[in-house]
């Protein structure tokens, strides 16, 4: 399957509070299947804002966003939630695991919400994903019993559960030490190269970015290097 799985066309975004400031100016780019892309830029250059627009969580922008060839304009909140559930996996700087649920259940939640497979199958898949990330032995623990690196790996497993088109990460290694960052990076790399998974990672770790397939550099709301 070749082609653009994600396409941003002339995306422009303003913040209105307290003053109207243009944060994104005519951003155009696309992501191909299996690409491992990093977005870098200084603080405040709009890279996180762009990520939230691309992830459909922020709908207040001008321009067009196509995911899997379908425009995200004029979709209802519930439809966007469905898109996020089925096509996008998220990894944030903070893991955001639910402490009330076991690790396995945390990974299963988006899968159960998808509702395509039975609970047993989702559980099996979740276990497989945890295995890929090497944390299958922790599956019955609560997230607060895990180390920071393990939590982030569980969060990645959760992002993978519905076999999304693309994984988006917002500084996924920002909270991790050198060793754990390395582990997470290797996982991403493996996902991209072995499983042909597309990844779009926002980071300001240049070391991290250099080793990805493609770097998008942003400054003042514009892409200066594709």
């Amino acid at each position, binding site marked *: 399957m070749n082609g653009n799985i994600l396409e941003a066309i002339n995306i422009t975004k303003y913040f209105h509070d307290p003053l109207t400031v243009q944060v994104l100016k005519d951003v155009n780019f696309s992501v191909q299947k299996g690409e491992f892309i990093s977005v870098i830029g200084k603080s405040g250059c709009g890279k*996180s804002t762009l990520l*939230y627009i691309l*992830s459909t*969580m*922020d709908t207040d922008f001008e321009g067009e966003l196509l995911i899997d060839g379908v425009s995200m304009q004029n979709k209802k*909140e*519930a439809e966007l*939630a*469905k898109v*996020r*559930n*089925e096509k996008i996996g*998220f990894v*944030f*700087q*903070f893991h*955001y*695991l*639910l*402490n*009330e*649920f076991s690790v396995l259940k945390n990974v299963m*939640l*988006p899968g*159960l*919400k*998808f*509702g395509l497979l039975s609970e047993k199958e989702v559980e099996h898949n979740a276990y497989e994903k945890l295995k890929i990330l090497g944390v299958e032995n922790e599956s019955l623990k609560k997230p607060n019993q895990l180390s920071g690196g393990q939590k982030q790996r569980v969060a990645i497993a*959760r992002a993978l559960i*519905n076999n999304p088109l693309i994984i988006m990460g*917002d500084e996924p290694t920002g909270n991790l030490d050198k060793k754990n960052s390395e582990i997470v990076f290797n996982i991403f790399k493996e996902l991209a190269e072995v499983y042909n998974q597309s990844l779009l990672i926002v980071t300001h770790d240049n070391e991290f970015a250099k080793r990805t397939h493609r770097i998008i550099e942003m400054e003042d709301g514009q892409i200066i290097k594709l």
Partner: protein
Amino acid sequence: MNFKLIANISLLLLLARWKQTMVAAIGVTFSITMFITLLGFMNGLNDLLDGLILNRTPHIRLFNEIQASKLQPIDKSLTYKDHHNFVSSVKPKNERLEIYNNGAILNALKKDKRVLGIAPKITAQVFYNVGAIDLTGVINGIDVEAENSLFKFSDYVTTGHYIDLKNIPNSIILGKGAANKMLANIGDVIQVTTPKGERMQLKVVGFFQSGLQDIDNVQSYSSINTTQKLLGETNSYVTDLQIKLKDILLAPQIAKEYEKIFEVEAIDIQTANSQFETGSSVRSLISYVVGITLLIVAGFGIYNILNMMIYEKMDSIAILKATGFSGKDVNVIFITIALSIGVFGGILGLLFGFGVSELIDQIPFNTAALPTIKTYPVNYNPRFYIIGGIFALVTTYFAGYFPARKASKVDPVIIIRGK
């Protein structure tokens, strides 16, 4: 929507803060318990007090009354037509108190489908002769069986057996107060005198106690035949027809109808005892208000707890939304939490309410005025339980509705960006 998943998430969120959940549920339980107990007890008392009068009062009473002529001769004079007339030369005449042609009326009433039963009665003014003095009294000549089936006569006969009144000729059941004054015991023979001077000896077969001292001091019961004999009347003589209807609410309307058809006075229970109805409806109203206030207070408790839970779980809500749960899903989760508290607390409340009612029902309550009552009266009307249950659900739903709406509007971006 995947209800099993939503229910699962709700349950886990509930259990994560189980102490708070318990407090909220206890609030609901407490208020429903109080609601049920209050209403049951209040209405039990109401029924008791109303029963004191209403059970023994016919829904419609047909009788004749000595009345002044509505038209005086001077009213007919054309000369004084426009004048203020105060000369009333025609006095009430000695009319008979008997209901004329009562056999035919009785038959007509028996055919009326709205009528549950009829008990004929004679009211006779008498003097009880005690040694040298006479005590004024009233003897009610009754159809013993009809009186018992319609007005629970036997409930008020505290000593002796009511049916003896029918089986033993020339017998009387004395009011407790009157009997005490006469120093009469069961088996004694007492003497009564009618206003016309006739005397008769009657055998005491029992005492009755109505709970109203004034009645017990004066009234006695005798069979209708004995009373007819006492008054020297034929056996068609009846002064009152007491009617019990199938539907008490129709009484005023049917009373008017009978008044016209039978040309007698007819009075309905609502007119005769309007104060009782007012009293009991005000008492019920007060207990409903107190109960509902308790529930609303419990509702605010749930609202607070859910609101706090939402602030605490902001991150969780954000990530649920980021990973594909829609605002509606989140809304349903919080409504489910609120309703679970409501259902759980409500059911416990209904059970406890029933328990406390049972407990009150066991507390001894002896009063000389109410011979048949041994414990506090409680009403177990299922209606209170249904209202309590529904109200528990409605309050908790609304208590959950606003926090849930807030939760469903949480914007994941703001929280995730904020970290």
